[in-house]
């Protein structure tokens, strides 16, 4: 893939959930380009333009990140923490979509700077509907930031 702009980064290790989410988002024509990362490590490499993603640029972040918490390799909270800590990536809206019903995850997620926190409905239809609502809200109602405001020095050298 070229350095085409990715609108949504979906971080989800569960194949079924990922399929459902993609389907819901594509049906609403909310995004042209959705990238699915299957674990925390891949998500971090994508976001920080490293590893297999050195062609990506901090100047063109995704408009939205849908982040599951239970992920292999690096877990969702860690991904969230790192990306909200770095000036180049902290302005990207992150919506946690998790099956966890733990109160402490909720508080920790918001505490680390998640823009919002969604509990995945168990029912397939409801799940699709939720993803659609999330997509509509974050890509239509909300105004995502353009660029990241960090100076040219952060631009990747080619």
């Amino acid at each position, binding site marked *: 893939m070229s350095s085409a702009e990715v609108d949504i980064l979906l971080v989800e290790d569960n194949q079924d959930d990922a399929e459902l989410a993609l389907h819901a988002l594509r049906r609403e024509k909310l995004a042209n380009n959705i990238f699915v990362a299957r674990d925390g490590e891949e998500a971090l490499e994508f976001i920080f333009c490293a590893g297999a993603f050195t062609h990506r640029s901090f100047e063109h972040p995704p408009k939205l990140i849908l982040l599951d918490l239970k992920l292999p390799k690096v877990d969702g909270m860690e991904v969230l923490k790192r990306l909200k800590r770095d000036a180049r990536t902290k302005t990207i809206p992150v919506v946690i979509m998790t099956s966890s019903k733990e109160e402490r995850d*909720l508080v920790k997620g918001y505490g680390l700077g998640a*823009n919002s*926190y*969604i*509990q995945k409905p168990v029912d397939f239809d409801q799940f699709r509907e939720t993803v659609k609502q999330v997509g*509509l809200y974050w890509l239509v*109602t*909300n*105004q995502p*930031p353009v660029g990241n405001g960090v100076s040219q020095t952060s631009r990747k050298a080619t």
Partner: protein
Amino acid sequence: MQEMMGTSALPIEILLVEDSPGDVLLTREALRDAKICLNLQVAADGEEAMALLRREGKYAAAPRPDLVLLDLNLPKKDGREVLQEIKADSNLAIIPVVILTTSASEVDILRSYQLHANCFVTKPVDLEQFLIVVKSIDNFWLTVVKLPIEPD
């Protein structure tokens, strides 16, 4: 200024920080048929907003907001400062803040995100659109999202 809408059950507390009484009324109009029971508090300037959030002085008994709708252009303390203060205060930082303002400037949008606003919504100029947007915000944050509600 409080108003109960909807029926019983624990209402969601929304703090609207808005200096234009016209916009306050419009927002109430939009939230009138809200599906979820909610309680709207209004602060007309930045200072009042912070006092309310911190439950200072006459606001000692004020309920803690679960969601803040914040205009950027406010008298006394302006919205950007309020945002900064909320997100810097460990007690208040997890409260989601939705910037709801007339500005559509990229600079304002970026700055708000950098200050950890949860999201940014530009007030539509058209009435119908405005009503729809407020309803979407309400719908999203109150029904789709899980809010970090602190038991009082």
